[in-house]
């Protein structure tokens, strides 16, 4: 009976793929049903992620010898409080909005803002013309920095060219590579060569 999961996976994959290329009522109905199931499974995956997160941190709290037990305890307590508020007052409510706007958003923004200082020290240390490659990287970084600075607008066109031509070329190459890899993986799944669902 090991062929059954493989057959189901191949059938579902082919139906979804054909639904993308052809506009047929039957394929549309089947594709909609399969996607609905996928959305439900994704929601359960999110729930499993939350449970796993709590398990890991509760385990660290139980094993008090770990240094991160205090932070784990804070995570568990915070998650419990926020979950309780959300369940009690509902998600679009004043308490939840207050928690989000006054705790969650400032903390994450501040954490993200610290990158500017780390970037400054890293730029001082890392961007050095040691070799030819690092010299090219140093030059490009200086052009982009200068080009996006309104005070030094003389290099704005050069910046636009760098972003539109070399950078876009590199990004397209990356996207095409990702697309080819995705197609290869999809083909292996559709042909039954890879069966991660039955292992």
């Amino acid at each position, binding site marked *: 009976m090991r062929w059954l999961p493989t057959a189901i996976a191949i059938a579902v994959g082919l139906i979804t793929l054909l639904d993308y290329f052809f506009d047929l009522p039957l394929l*549309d109905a089947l*594709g*909609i049903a399969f*996607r*609905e199931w*996928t*959305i439900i499974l*994704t*929601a359960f995956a*999110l729930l499993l992620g939350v449970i796993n997160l709590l398990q890991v941190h509760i385990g660290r709290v139980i094993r008090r010898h770990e240094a991160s037990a205090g932070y784990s305890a804070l995570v568990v307590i915070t998650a419990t409080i926020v979950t309780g508020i959300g369940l009690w007052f509902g*998600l*679009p409510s004043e308490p*939840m*909005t207050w928690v*989000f*706007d006054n705790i*969650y*958003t400032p*903390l*994450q*923004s501040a*954490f*993200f*803002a610290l990158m*500017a*200082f780390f*970037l*400054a*020290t890293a*730029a*001082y*240390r890392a*961007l*050095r*013309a*040691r070799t030819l490659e690092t010299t090219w990287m*140093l030059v490009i*970084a*200086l052009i982009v*920095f*200068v080009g*996006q*600075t*309104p*005070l*030094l*607008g003389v290099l*704005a066109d050069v910046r*636009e060219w760098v*972003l*539109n031509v070399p*950078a*876009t070329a*590199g*990004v*397209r190459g990356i*996207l095409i590579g990702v697309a080819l890899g995705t197609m290869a993986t999809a083909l292996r799944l559709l042909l039954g060569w890879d069966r991660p669902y039955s292992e």
Partner: protein
Amino acid sequence: MIQCPHCGTKNRDGSKYCSDCGARLVPQAGLVCPMCGTPNSVENVFCSKCGARLVPLTAATLGDKTPPPTPIKGLSLPSKPVETPPTKAEPSAPPPRAEPPTPKIEPPPAKTTDDWLEQLRAQVPEEQAPAIPEAPEVESEVPAEAEESADWLARLSATAPVPEELSPAEKARRAAESIEIAEEDLPDWLRTPVTPSETESPPAARMPDWVMEVTPAKEEPAVPPPSAAEEIPDWLKEPAPTEAHAPAQEAPAWFKPLEAITEIPPPVPATEEEIPDWLKPLKPSEEELAAPVRPQAPGEGLLEGIAVEKPAWLTATPYLEPGEEEFLPDWLRTPPPKPAAPAAPTPEGIAPEFQGEVPEWIAALKPVEPTAIPQIVETGPVEVAGPLAGLRSVLPLAAVVAEPHRLPPAPAANPFAEQARLFESVLATPVTAPVARAKKSTRREKIFRALIYLVLTFAIILPFFLPDVATASIRTFGTPTADLYDTIQALPADALVIVSFDYDPGNIGEMDLQANALVRHLLQRRARVVALSTLETGPQIAQRVLDNAARAVGNSAYGTHYLNLGYLAGQEAGLRQLAATGLVPTTSDYRYRQPLAQYPNFSNAQNWRNVALIVELAGTPEALQKWMEQVQPRVNVKIVAGVSAAAEPRARAYREAKQLSGLMSGLMGAAQYEILSNQRGLAVISVGAQSTASLVIIALIVLGNLVFLLSRDRGKAK
């Protein structure tokens, strides 16, 4: 199946105990091996299963003059050999120790020193056996012996049970039954009835030596004299003598040779010429013969001479179930009384009187003194649990078993054994992960780092006080942001626009500025804005941005001009489903949890043909990529995007491919859009701060390279 003799339960074959009542199914009618517990026949010297010795070697070699008696189980004859040694020892009863030892007749030394010689003599051919004593001499000794035995017989009569009086026929029948039952267990010399005849050698010739010594002539009646019979108590008058005096024709023929054995007369001293030379030194003196005979318990003297060397398993009283004692051999049944210490043998183990007579080839046959057994007992384990707790070596163990031992190393037959050992040793070796030692910062470095942070902070704060200095030269013409502005500007009134807030609070610093400017512009254009998000935190952000924009624009209401549909689950699948089905009427909004059909201004949103524009606000390139892959090819709707500066390179690829109708990126894009929509605000001021911070970073890069080059040149110069 084995039926339990106690409760009748049927048990499986091979069961030793009843599964119902626990009674022993295998009767211990023999010797139980002390090593493996296997019941053995009484005739076995070694265990039939494990080969362990059942009869102790010391008892056979040191303690008894006679060869090891054959235990006869179930034979109810009064002639059990193991019970008769006292009769043999009567004439050689231990004399008073105070008397000087007489070299001729001292029995104990002969018993203790030359028992191995006795065994050798027992192997002498029958024709060379000593002559049987004559009957008249026996008859002359019996009255005196009977008289001297009166006292201890009288004591025994007071305690011994009175035997039941039976007729001679009944006694013969019972004797025959008992013999029939146990006949198969009898040795050969007892199994086949021997008819005495003149041509055959007497049965006594096949008996042990002690039997030959005491066996009277067959024609001699072993009738005690009347004087002795009168002094014997009544209970002794009836049983055995009656049986012994039964006429020969009344008893079975096979029983006749046994009669001579059952009736053991007292030993009769032989004449000087009848005594062989090797027995002459053993002849007791007249005083010793006249000494009173002490009653001797069965088995007494059996272990004489080895008491000090007896192992613990012989001295300790084993635990026996009630009734099991009768199945034990006689030499184990009753602990023998402690005999008097025998005379010490010579260092060579041969009595002095025999040292000159024993040839060397006989001396070479002397068995080696068993000294290993006491050592085993000394090293035996002490039981610590169970009913045997506190006893040592109740179950005798060989020394090699009792001592801790180690298995010999296995031969390296496996060719991978060496590799396996090497692998195990590698695994057992504690691995210390290479810890990247943090370079200890010097004081100068700390100061320099603090100086960098201070300068950067000052550069960020300064534009807030001088906004025009930094934003005066912001360029907007010909940028992707201008294309985005033009797209929104071209929307008709009441156009349905879907705005996806796909960024989290980490990108709020630049993305909120874009969203605020864009949503304000949409509301100013009187577009109907439908917000959703593929991130869990997106709906909250969208609600806040929409409310702020509505307050800024005015005359905009939730449900009328804008609507928040909340979280769109499923990632790529959810977007693919959105592209396939549109906004489902049953989809509920985020604030009031009402279905989309309840909002008239947005009831036609389920059809993509009614959607004028899709605005994707992506904090990461992956969020934009999902929309561009799952939705943009399926719907004929313009898509514009506002992305973070980190996602700009990826977004520019879609912009260059004309998949995006407009694009604004980062803080600069937000500032450009504010300028284009004529709503200067925080984005423009923030761009000033970003510009000064960028200048500081450029200066640091240049400074760092200068320091690096100077230090490298200085090193080369040195």
